[in-house]
């Protein structure tokens, strides 16, 4: 397993957001999901730059919807997480759990 198999922090957030949104995962909803859950402002450019990178790595795949007038005649690009993406999320979760194990005492620090 190479270091490239690990997700970066923002990549991790994006994959989790796409998983949470299931069939409704496109730019707007992914951005809003991360913003509402992490309370940090996220730009749509950052979301797409990361989604493109994740698609290149094979962690997500996308398809276009039909164009709609309320979007200026533009399509929505829906995303879904691939099996490889789910494996990467699981690896991250196990790695984080292993790193956090036995660190309950840290709560006593200010």
């Amino acid at each position, binding site marked *: 397993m190479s270091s490239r198999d690990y997700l970066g922090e923002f990549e991790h957030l994006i994959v989790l957001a796409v998983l949470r949104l299931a069939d409704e995962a496109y730019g707007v909803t992914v951005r809003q999901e991360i913003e509402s859950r992490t309370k940090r402002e996220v730009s749509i*450019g950052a979301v797409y730059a990361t989604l493109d990178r994740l698609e290149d790595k094979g962690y997500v795949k996308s398809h276009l919807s039909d164009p709609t007038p309320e979007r200026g005649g533009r399509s929505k690009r829906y995303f879904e997480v691939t099996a490889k993406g789910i494996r990467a999320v699981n690896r991250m979760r196990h790695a984080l759990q292993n790193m956090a194990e036995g660190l309950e005492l840290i709560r006593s620090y200010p």
Partner: protein
Amino acid sequence: MTNESRIRPPQVASWLVSLFASAKDETLQGDLLEEFSLLASNSGASVAQRWYWRQTLRSIVHLFVSEFRAAPWSTAAIVVAGFFLTKILFPLPEKAIFAVIEKYRIFDSHFDLYVFFAGDGIALSHVITSMLVGCSVALAARRKEMIATGALALMFCGMTALASLVWIARGNTSMLWSTLPWNFADWIAMLSAAAVIRTLRSPETHLASSA
């Protein structure tokens, strides 16, 4: 149709996004428009416009980096070619101006004109040369016009920053203040030329929002 549904995003911001977004990023522009319309109807036009501008400026940085990373070697090759083209072209107008000055002995008959040509005239010729370089780089970097030209402008910006530090260290700040505005004009000229090429090439890129 309600007032809210007629509110359009800032045209310049929309244009800037379309300059940096690739063809497949038309969905990004659709997303921006969708959220803008929602925000405008919920919170008002001014809040939505401020949000749109914030999103635009932050997104451009990410689009610039991701587009560069998508084809780093070909983009870097065009940037390096643009750098050498600049180095070749920049001295030419200067030589031509001084050849004319020498031939017609302008410094004897029209000293003020000589001072203008030898100072601002050369600086102006550099702005025009920068536009030519910007056009050439943009033409070579198809679909990445702003990325390649922006990277070249950033390279010159970095070199100017280094030169400025040297001038400051030597206490020659007057040189710095006389040169910096013209350098800034060179980068703007370069980017403007690339923006024109990009706009002409892409039928989807236009000032009027298609909202």
